[in-house]
């Protein structure tokens, strides 16, 4: 039975979420199947990347401020958190998180008489997202911390001369300047976080009912066809598109953050390599 490409898209387009045809193709692989299934897997890469970035951004701000704080009660924990997550491989972090989460009692934990279910935490959609969230928060916190420390002294003195102090100074001067200075580096962090999402299904977290990400399906095809020259370049193609989109979206924000500056002082975004964490 042969399918037209449109039928293939209907059957496998949402396969990574569990909709459509249940059985993955086993023989007579077509280019259309490659593109459809791998593209379907990209949904997970976008899901992990986008949500981890969104939640991580807030934690990163808190961590950066804590690391810059005078009180060692705030500074030390933040320093350690950042060191542990930046100093160890993401791959190992995934393993540790998974092994820890499966140790939780299967029946659920009792808190104040309420039974909280725990089994969902060992699933990739929650567990791996949690690890990526902590990981990106640590990397971004280091970037924001560096930016916080390179705010020109004159800016802060000028703010104080105008009588802007405390929370007002932070909200209106320090925070926007920190974001503006750190944004190009943060853009790179975002790009490489999306790249890091490909590790999820290769580090402990099982792909439930063969619902995996782009690399999971590419690996499936390569294992079946013994031909790496088609599926992996397709993953590459999708990721180049994703990278271009992220660069564009973050570039828009960068323009917004720099809108008050004269043309020659604006910070440009440059892509810097920073592969595996």
């Amino acid at each position, binding site marked *: 039975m042969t399918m037209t490409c449109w039928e293939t898209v209907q059957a496998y387009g949402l396969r990574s979420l569990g909709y459509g045809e249940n059985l993955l193709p086993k023989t007579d692989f077509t280019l259309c199947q490659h593109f459809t299934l791998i593209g379907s897997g990209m949904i997970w890469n976008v899901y992990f990347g986008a949500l981890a970035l969104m939640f991580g951004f807030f934690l990163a701000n808190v961590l950066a401020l804590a690391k810059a704080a005078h009180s060692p009660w705030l500074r030390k924990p933040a320093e350690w958190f950042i060191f542990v997550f930046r100093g160890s491989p993401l791959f190992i972090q995934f*393993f540790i998180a998974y092994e820890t989460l499966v140790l939780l009692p299967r029946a659920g934990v009792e808190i104040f008489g309420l039974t909280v279910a725990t089994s969902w935490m060992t699933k990739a959609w929650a567990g791996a997202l949690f690890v990526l969230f902590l990981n990106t928060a640590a990397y971004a916190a280091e970037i924001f911390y560096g930016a916080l420390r390179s705010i020109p002294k004159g800016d802060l003195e000028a703010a104080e001369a105008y009588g802007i102090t405390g929370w007002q100074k932070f909200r209106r001067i320090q925070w926007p300047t920190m974001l503006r200075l750190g944004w190009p580096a943060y853009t790179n962090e975002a790009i490489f976080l999306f790249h890091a999402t490909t590790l999820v299904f290769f580090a402990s977290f099982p792909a439930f009912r063969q619902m995996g990400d782009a690399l999971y399906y590419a690996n499936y095809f390569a294992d079946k066809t013994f031909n790496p020259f088609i599926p992996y370049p397709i993953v590459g193609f999708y990721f180049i598109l994703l990278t271009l989109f992220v660069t564009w979206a973050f570039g828009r924000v960068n323009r917004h953050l720099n809108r008050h500056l004269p043309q020659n002082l604006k910070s440009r975004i440059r892509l810097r390599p920073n592969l595996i964490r």
Partner: protein
Amino acid sequence: MFAFCADPKAIEGLSWLACYLTSSKHLAFYWSFGTVLLLLAITAPIALGFGFGGATMARSPVAPARIFGKAYIAMVRGIPDIVFFMFFVIALDQGVEYVKSLAVCSDPAWPWQGLEFRVCKEAKVPLATSDAFWHDAYGFTLAVVTFALVFGAFVANVLYGAMQAVPRAQLETAEAYGMNHGQVFWRVLVPQMWVFALPGLSNLWMILIKSTPLLFLLGVEDIVYYARELGGSKTQAYEYPHPDWRLWYFVALLCFYLLMTKASEGVLGRLAARLSKGQATAAGEAMRKAAA
């Protein structure tokens, strides 16, 4: 290892632990840390070499070489490196076997047939009859070449930037003294570029350390492989039965990596201070003032 380990079921407590931690499987586990360090020791210089070649080509006045160099640098930018890892290991293996098949097979056919990669059995690398050692060595070599290729591209990017960062005036002065192209490159540009390259290279070294667990994905019996094997729960059928201890093994690996990171930071910090000495950079200027 110890004499009292002869019957592990009869002993308890610390002596049990001592015997457990010195079982032959554990000794193999400790050696696998050596595998990781060996990979780092071999890959780093090769990647540096690839990177140097790539950066030099990207600056070349000859158009094909320049395009090749730039393409090599651009290769790893938009695509997750793990894709390259998974791709290169199979692609290199098949490439080697295909080339060998052209030489040794009596009737070499196009090997990618339908759903199989087929070469005659004389063209298999290593031969199916060879020692397990050669299979391991071949797998490790493929991993080294893959790591070196991917990291070479990153190094090339850093070195290309560093070469551009050497002040033009330095090179022009050298030319004014009558040095030819090669002399300017080797005597002026290369010695001066390292101080500009060091921050980028340090960063890459940290990343290289942190990417070594991927050896596991490439099928090498590395520390991750052993941590999973040894940590999994063992029934009474085993000499040393225990519940699932994988978490503790992974925590040990985490500590190993954190120590490596900390140690590298120290060494690289010192190296940076040494390279900055006498350089026309802010750090070099600060050192000059402190000494005066």
